Every structure is written in C-alpha cells, then in structure tokens.
C-alpha cells in the first residue's frame, strides 16, 4: 500500500520532472527543488491553516476565560477538558489545525527519501525495483541511470566538503540553520510564563534543527536539498502573511514582546 500510494507516485513525479528538465548533470537536484515547490504549493492552504490555528491557540492562552477555567478546574481534568472543548467550539478553534500539516509532512519526507534512493538506483537490486516502480506510460529507458550530480554533491550520498583535510558537512549545517530560522520566525510571542503552546514551540525550536541536521548528516543529500528549499519556502510563506516574528532572531527577542493581534 505504501509502495502504491506514496513511493510510486513520488518516484514517477520526480522522474517526469527530471525528464522534462532535460536529464543532464544537476537536473535531478533541480527536479527535487521543483518537486519541493510543488509540494509546498499543494500544502499551502494546510500550512496557512496551521499558521492560523497556532495563532488562535496562542491567543487563547491569554484569554481571561481560558485562564480562569485552568485555575478553577485545575484538579478536575475531565471537567477542564469539557470546558476547553466548549471554548474551542464557541471560538471556532480546531485544536488539531496546527498539527495536521506536520503530520502530512512525515509521509512526504519518508516517501521522498525512499523515492530518491529508488530513482538513483545505486545497486542492481535498486535498479530492478525502479523498473517495477515506473508507470508504463513513462519512457524512462532514455534517462536511466539518473545523473546524481548537483553542484558539488552526489545526491545519493551524504554531503561533505573537504577543507584542509576535514570533511565538513556544509549541507547539514545549512539544514539545521534554516530549520532554526523557520522555527524562530514562526515562534509565537507570549507574555504568559505558563503558556504551554509557546513552551512546546520553543522545545520544537531546539529538537527540529538537531533532528533534521542529523538526517542531513547521515542520509542522501537529496533529502537535504528538500529540507532547505522547504524551510526557505516556509519562511517566505510566513513572511508573506505578515506574521514573521523577526525580533525572535535577536537574543532575548521573544521574551518581552507583546502578543501580536490580528
């Protein structure tokens, strides 16, 4: 099922873009970039709802009624949950709206990674799997094997640049940096010290760059290209909504800012 609904469509889409681009050197990297843009465009409404949902949840933390029920039902979790759901309903907030795009990202990331490895076919066994993955209407015999070169990278292998005898993982650093930037810029500000949303976002701001940097360090650099472009587009999308919190990039920038109202 995973093969049918994720791997096959993603691999064929990548191959189609690569073929359309002219399948020369660097084209597979460009295909991954175009693929990322396409995914971002498709998930744009979802990302927008994530931004809106996160903002609504953030504002809720500063709502007087919300704070009152937290205190009032602190020892009765069942009642607290019922009251929270009532407020969600009244204010038209979907508490899961900010999670959905993240959930959707995971199969795409995992599927894309498997598709890149499949498309590049570094072993005869991989090549055989690729032969079975390709849709009948695609004439890929002219483009296989794919040229995995992109700039200084081999997209099928982890990236590093040799400087003074040291293998420096530049792409992993860029992945971690852009992930950190995106998280910081989208991090909501809060004056409430007990704001759990802000705490969670702060925690994600630490885990996500480390996790994605680790991926970039250990796995095919094609996935790092996806991460970088996806992060940059995420920042652009957030900035376009006018909600990017540039003050978060400064030391202590998110501690004192007031909550931004719509």
């Amino acid at each position: 099922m995973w093969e049918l609904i994720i791997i096959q469509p993603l691999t064929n889409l990548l191959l189609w873009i690569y073929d359309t681009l002219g399948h020369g050197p660097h084209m597979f990297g460009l295909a991954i970039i175009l693929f990322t843009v396409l995914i971002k465009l498709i998930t744009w409404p979802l990302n927008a709802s994530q931004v809106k949902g996160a903002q609504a949840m953030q504002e809720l933390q500063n709502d007087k009624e919300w704070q009152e029920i937290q205190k009032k039902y602190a020892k009765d979790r069942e009642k607290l949950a019922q009251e929270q759901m009532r407020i969600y309903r009244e204010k038209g907030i979907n508490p899961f709206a900010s999670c959905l795009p993240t959930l959707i990202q995971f199969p795409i990331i995992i599927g894309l990674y498997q598709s890149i490895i499949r498309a590049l076919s570094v072993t005869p066994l991989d090549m055989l799997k690729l032969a079975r993955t390709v849709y009948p209407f695609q004439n890929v015999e002219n483009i296989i094997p794919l040229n995995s070169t992109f700039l200084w990278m081999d997209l099928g292998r982890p990236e590093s640049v040799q400087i003074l005898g040291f293998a420096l993982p530049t792409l992993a650093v860029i992945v971690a940096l852009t992930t950190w930037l995106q998280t910081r810029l989208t991090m909501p500000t809060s004056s409430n010290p007990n704001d759990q949303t802000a705490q969670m976002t702060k925690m994600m701001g630490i885990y996500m760059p480390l996790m994605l940097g680790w991926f970039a360090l250990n796995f095919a650099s094609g996935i790092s290209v996806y991460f970088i472009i996806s992060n940059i587009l995420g920042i652009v999308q957030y900035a376009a909504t006018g909600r990017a919190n540039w003050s978060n990039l400064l030391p202590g920038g998110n501690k004192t800012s007031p909550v931004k109202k719509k």
Partner: protein
Amino acid sequence: MKTKKLTLFFLLILGALIISACSGQPLTNNFPGLVADADRAYISTGSFIYAIDVQTGNQVWSYPEKADGELLYYANPVLTEDGQLLIGSTGTNHAFISLDPATGQEKWAEPFSGAKGAWVASPLVFNNTIYAPNTDGYLYTLDMNGKQVAEPIELGGALWSAPVTDGTYIYINSLDHHLHILNPSTGKLADPIDLGGAAPDSPAVGTEGIYVGSFESNIKHITSNGKNEVIASASDWIWGTPTYDNETLYYADLSGNIFSLDLSNNRQNWNTLKPDGPITASLLVVDDQIYVATEAGSFIALDRDGKIVWEKTPGGKIYTTPVLSNDLILVAPYQAEFALAAYDAAGKQAWTFTPSK
C-alpha cells in the same frame, strides 16, 4: 497540550527510525555472485565469500574470518588460470582482493584500493592483465600481483558488467548507454557505440561479432569492422547477457519473456515462453537443455524447442546466473533459506548449502 507535545516528539523519533530503516548507505544489499570450477563453487554474499565442495555441498572455507561492515561482496568472483580468485568490495571500503581458491587466504601483499567507487562488476583477465571496471566509470588495469600497470581508463557511467574479449579487443558495457571498445595492445579506445539504453550486464561474444542487450529492449549485433545493427527485440528491458550457442542466441527480458533467436536469418525460433516474472539471470545452455532462473524463484529446464522439461522452486528469488560444475547446475537464490543449491540434469536436487552462523 502535553499529549500533543509527546505525539510530535514520538512522530519525530518514528520518522527517524523509518528513514534509518529504509536505507542510507549505498550498495549495502544485492543478490549474490557465483562462480565454479570442476571441484568448487565460490559464492559472494554480503560480508563473506564461501568456497563449497561441489561433490558434497560442504563449506571448504569462508573469507574473511570476521565480518567487516565496510567490506561487502556481491560481484561474481573470477577464477584465473594462475590460481587466483579475484573480487572487489561493494562496501564503503573499495578494496579489490585476490584469494587463494584452495585456502581462502589473501594472495596479494595488499589489496588494490585505487578506485573511488564500488566493485559491482567482475574483472576480465586477458594476457596476464586484470581489467577491472568500477562504478566510478574507470577501467583499472592491474598486473597479476594487484599492482596498477597504467593510468585508469575513463569510460564514463557506472560500470556494472564484466568486460569480455574476442581475443583482439575488449568490450565493456556501461550504464551510460554505450559499449566501449578497447584495444589492449595499444591502450586506445574506439569511438563508443550508442546502445540506446543502459546495459547492466556483459555482451555475448559470437563467432561473427558480439551481441548486446540493453534497456532499449533490443539486441544489437556489433562487429569490429563497424557493423552495428538491431537484429532482434524484446518486449521489456534486457538485463542478463545473451547466451550464444551454435548460431542461436538465447535471451530474456524483465517481463519474463524468453527468446531463441536464429542468428543465420535473425528470426525467432520461438518466443512464446513466459514463465512467471522478470528474468535478470542469463540463460545457461548445457547439452540439450536450457536453464532459466526467474525472479519469482522458478528454476526451469527447457529443451531446445522451448518446451519445459522440468520446473523447480528452490525458494527465494533468483537473479544470479546459474553455473555448471561437473554435471551439476548450481543456483544461488536471494533471500532463501540456503545460499546455494545443486541440481542434476533430471532436476533432482543434489544438495543445498547454508552458511554456518
């Protein structure tokens, strides 16, 4: 909120585990390589190379003593006339080694380690020189002691197949869609011949030129005097080396079709046989029988008219070309309970070999 936090955290961990499981390091898995002489079979499968007594199916030796995560062996080992067993590693360590077929001990003072890529292809030994194609796109030439005798020759594309020779020229197929022709006496390359698709296995050498199958799904006949023509086709990619036998060419494709081509008139003797799925292994012709191994795991004996004589299912998938040793046909399945099985011409299983753990 805590539930949400935990969910996200576990999703990250799950994502990491799934991605880790699906692969990472290249060239870590492939189907086995196989070669045999009259007494022993040699199979390369992952971290080890095994020598097996063909009479009994018992293990004679294995190499190396302990698994090394950087060294992996999947190419067909090559036996040389001066008593060497040659094979390169497909692991992250690109060592090319020589073993003593009798003992499994290393023969060279040190492995050849000058290649940048993995060794998927077997080498060719011709006029006391080892011609070893690598996935880095270079053909390396070594003496019989593993010393490089000339600068590597850049062919282009990943080289997965063993070179072949007609006694004058050396022919090397490449995934770059070309057949490369080397004159070993001068070290000069002829203009590469466009095959129209990648060619993962070797050309077949006939009395009047060579025959090449490729992902273009055609068979090309190429001669040293410049002839280059499509003489037959298939309905899917051709993977395995065509088998040349008495003016007949046997070949198969990834849709599972088997073909018998009469080279005297370039007409198919028969092409209606389609057992059960993709065929990557070359067909083996012994006496009046043709042996076919399929990915679905069938091992089939045909007569020369294309009629099935017997059919066995040893288990696992079969990608590796079967080989003949004495009167036995050896089959090396992938992901089976055993690594090697021996059958006689009547289809009776003589033995199976499972590596000791």
